[in-house]
């Protein structure tokens, strides 16, 4: 069982609500869910879709072929009718589309009329459609009805009852009328956790003790702001909407200097403005976590679409030479734990740490059995209160064996905490002499670097242990690469090498990935960008050149069918 449902329509028609509801219903029923969205940079009109894939086994990538299309505009039919699988069904409302389709795979459901009749308002047409999809799939409506109750409880019992009636009307209509519906669902299981990429980053920050988040809204990172703002009161966090991205990173540095864990987030254009602040974090050795949500550039590019073209920007950003760490999660689960690790590394070594993600990961929802706080790292590396008071002397930038100086909290004792964006002495006061400069570079950069590099986990090898074919990726291509390996491994010795901790570049010690690559007959680096940025980094860091590359730069993520087609073309040439 592996079904995909596509909801197509204009912005403002409520696709997101229907999509979120369906995804939640499936995850509560214990199915594995993967949902993704495609939307335009507009609030009303245009054309968007929301696609939900669910199965009794793990799913992690978008499919090109769909089983059910719910068309809320005519464009959905024009665009996606061809994606329908055999025995697939289109549902639509001929009254609102002002058009009828006589083909057998089309089912005309009067969403609006049923909403008016059973719910009392046309607004509930989406609830009718959601109920209808339950009916088509042969799913009991109880989970949906429970969810509607939770969602609308705040609006009163009348609204709950109206929505329940509307959902049941849609459900019953589909059960009665969709004679061609032949979906066979696996028995439901234990409810699963459903979470998106941006929620996972936000949750990771909250669970890491982030107390301050400052940002300027920019797709696709705004979801982190929204999530954290929603949790301010519950967990004692301040989310400050800054006047610009320059202010955002400087505020985060001010808060971090003040003694709390701080983070900022943005997308490429906003990050371009932040870059000077990255350098400031480095010079003042002020811990900060930066979430960088990639979208297609240059300039404003495709504001709401996806690309992996800011890896080298993150790795090389800012003037001067200093250590940093760059993580690129491939799933919401990795996003949660890597955000946690980002905070730990940032605080431990007093450096900027990046979480590089993209619109695709930001907006996709995945199911998991559940996250646990047991694996969350939390050590307070700062010197506070009595710990600071009992010191005889304190120097913010003290020369130490490992390069890490004591990070004191200003005001917690009589010891003064001083730092400077100018080159400075151990106390933090500006200097001009060559000797101090050299010692500081050693402290800040050379001593810390090997320790940071030691924290970096090796890439993930999935599939054959001795592969002939290795497909390599980083960040959000994780899911589609993994499923490609699963689809091809019956016939080929194939494996995926996925990098989620990218900089400092993982050493070859724990997992001898360079041997895996060198022993393979075909190595392919798959990236959602035009120039193969990871391939270039691999060559620069390890001197290894991939046999070939697959690059996609149309602003859309890879679908499974699409990548399999490209991979087979390369494999066929072997």
């Amino acid at each position, binding site marked *: 069982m592996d079904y995909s449902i596509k909801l197509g329509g204009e912005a403002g028609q409520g696709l997101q609500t229907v999509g979120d509801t369906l995804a939640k219903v499936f995850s*509560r029923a214990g199915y594995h869910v993967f949902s993704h969205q495609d939307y335009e940079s507009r609030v009303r009109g245009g054309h968007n879709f929301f696609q939900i894939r669910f199965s009794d086994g793990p799913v992690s990538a978008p499919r090109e072929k769909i089983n059910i299309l719910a068309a809320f505009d005519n464009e959905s039919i024009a665009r996606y009718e061809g994606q329908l699988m055999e025995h697939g069904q289109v549902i639509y409302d001929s009254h609102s589309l002002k058009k009828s389709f006589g083909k057998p795979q089309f089912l005309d459901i009067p969403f609006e009329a049923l909403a008016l009749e059973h719910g009392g308002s046309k607004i509930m047409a989406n609830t009718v459609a959601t109920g209808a999809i339950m009916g088509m799939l042969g799913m009991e409506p109880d989970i949906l009805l429970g969810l509607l109750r939770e969602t609308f409880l705040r609006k009163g019992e009348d609204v709950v009852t109206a929505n329940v009636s509307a959902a049941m009307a849609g459900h019953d209509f589909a059960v009665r009328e969709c004679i061609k519906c032949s979906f066979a669902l696996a028995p439901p299981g234990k409810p*699963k*956790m*459903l*979470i998106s990429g941006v*929620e996972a980053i936000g*949750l990771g920050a*909250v*669970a*890491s*003790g982030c*107390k*301050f988040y400052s940002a300027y809204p920019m797709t696709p990172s705004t979801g982190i702001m929204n999530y954290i703002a929603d949790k*301010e*009161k*519950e*967990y*004692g966090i*301040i989310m*400050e909407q800054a*006047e*610009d991205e320059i*202010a*955002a990173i*400087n*505020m*985060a*540095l*001010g*808060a*971090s*200097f*003040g*003694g*709390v*864990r*701080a983070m900022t987030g943005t997308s490429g254009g906003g990050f371009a403005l932040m870059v*000077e*602040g990255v350098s*400031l974090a480095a010079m*003042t050795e002020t811990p900060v976590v930066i979430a960088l949500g990639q979208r297609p550039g240059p300039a404003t590019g495709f504001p709401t679409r996806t690309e992996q073209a800011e890896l080298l920007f993150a790795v090389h950003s800012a003037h001067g030479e200093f250590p940093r760490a760059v993580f690129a999660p491939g799933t919401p689960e990795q996003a949660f734990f890597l955000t946690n690790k980002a905070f730990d590394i940032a605080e431990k070594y007093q450096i900027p740490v990046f979480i590089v993600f993209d619109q695709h990961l930001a907006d996709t929802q995945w199911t998991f059995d559940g*996250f646990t*706080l047991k694996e*969350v790292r*939390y050590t*307070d590396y700062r010197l506070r209160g009595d710990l600071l008071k009992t010191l005889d002397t304190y120097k913010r930038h003290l020369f130490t064996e490992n390069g890490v100086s004591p990070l004191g*909290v*200003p*005001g917690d*004792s*009589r*010891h*003064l*905490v*001083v*730092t*400077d*964006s100018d080159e400075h002495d151990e106390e933090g*006061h*500006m200097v001009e002499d060559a000797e101090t400069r050299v010692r500081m570079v050693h402290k800040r950069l050379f001593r810390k670097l090997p320790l940071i590099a030691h924290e970096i986990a090796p890439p993930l090898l999935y599939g054959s242990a001795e592969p002939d074919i290795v497909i390599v990726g980083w960040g959000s291509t994780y899911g589609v690469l993994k499923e490609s390996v699963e689809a091809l491994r019956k016939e080929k010795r194939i494996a995926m090498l996925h990098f989620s901790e990218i900089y400092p570049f993982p050493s070859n010690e724990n997992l001898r990935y360079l041997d895996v690559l060198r022993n393979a007959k075909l190595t392919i680096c798959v990236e959602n960008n035009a120039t193969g940025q990871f391939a270039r980094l691999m060559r620069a860091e390890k001197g290894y050149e991939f046999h070939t590359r697959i690059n996609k730069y149309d602003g859309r993520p890879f679908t499974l069918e699409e990548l399999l087609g490209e991979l087979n073309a390369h494999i066929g040439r072997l």
Partner: protein
Amino acid sequence: MPTSEDYKGQAPAWCPGCGNFSILKAFVEALVELGIEPHQFTIVSGIGQGAKLPHYLKCNTFNGLHGRTLPVATGMKLANHEMRVIAVAGDGDCYGEGGNHLLHAMRRNIGLKLFVHDNQIYGLTKGQASPTSMEGMKTKTQPFGVFSEQLNPMALAVALDCSFVARGFAGEPEHLKGLIKEAMGHKGFSLVDILQPCVTFNKINTYEWYRQRVYHIEAEYNPEDRAEAFKRALQWGERIPLGILYRNNRPVYEERIPVIKDTPLVRQPFDPSNSGITFKEFY
């Protein structure tokens, strides 16, 4: 009680006769008289001659980037609003590079004290026009003289309803000390613009030039009258008012944030196992 000896820092690297010396002196005396000890406040500064001030005394210090004084200070104040956070900047730093931050800091009315060393010229980069340079002033980079209208920080602040707006003069350190003390005692955002002769690069706005023009705002002046404040703020040229031009009691930003109503953020402990995170919302 602290004495001025407790504040002695590095020897200043300013030009002899620089207005910054008397600002530093007035500042230290104000702190001594207020009984504030070095560890009880933080100076956030940017880049410029005035921004070097925290190195020349003793205090918690974040000497950041040119123009970015206020956002760093804002972040720090939100992390620990019981800390006195003072921002020190120059006219190029605060009115030029960091202009946007100034507008929004005044809008927020966050409890920062901003002291601007306003010498109407760029000192550190050796003599280019600043936003407050007077129209017509010739410099190496403005060979035909400054064409742009001089920025009026006092009028800008009154227009934005900044909750404390004052002007001091480096040539009158006693008066300036009083203003610094008043600003330190004010709860919301305070802007003190300090006229500061640059003896090396600004040959127009000299000690003498200022002395002929400045006057003390009379005792019966009501600084809560915004319209009157705006009139005074517009005075420049023949007569330049010194003193508190405007003040109000607008709500203070940090006092409106529910999360830090009882305890500063920095003193709210965190323990992941006791954080109350249940993941329930995702099921």
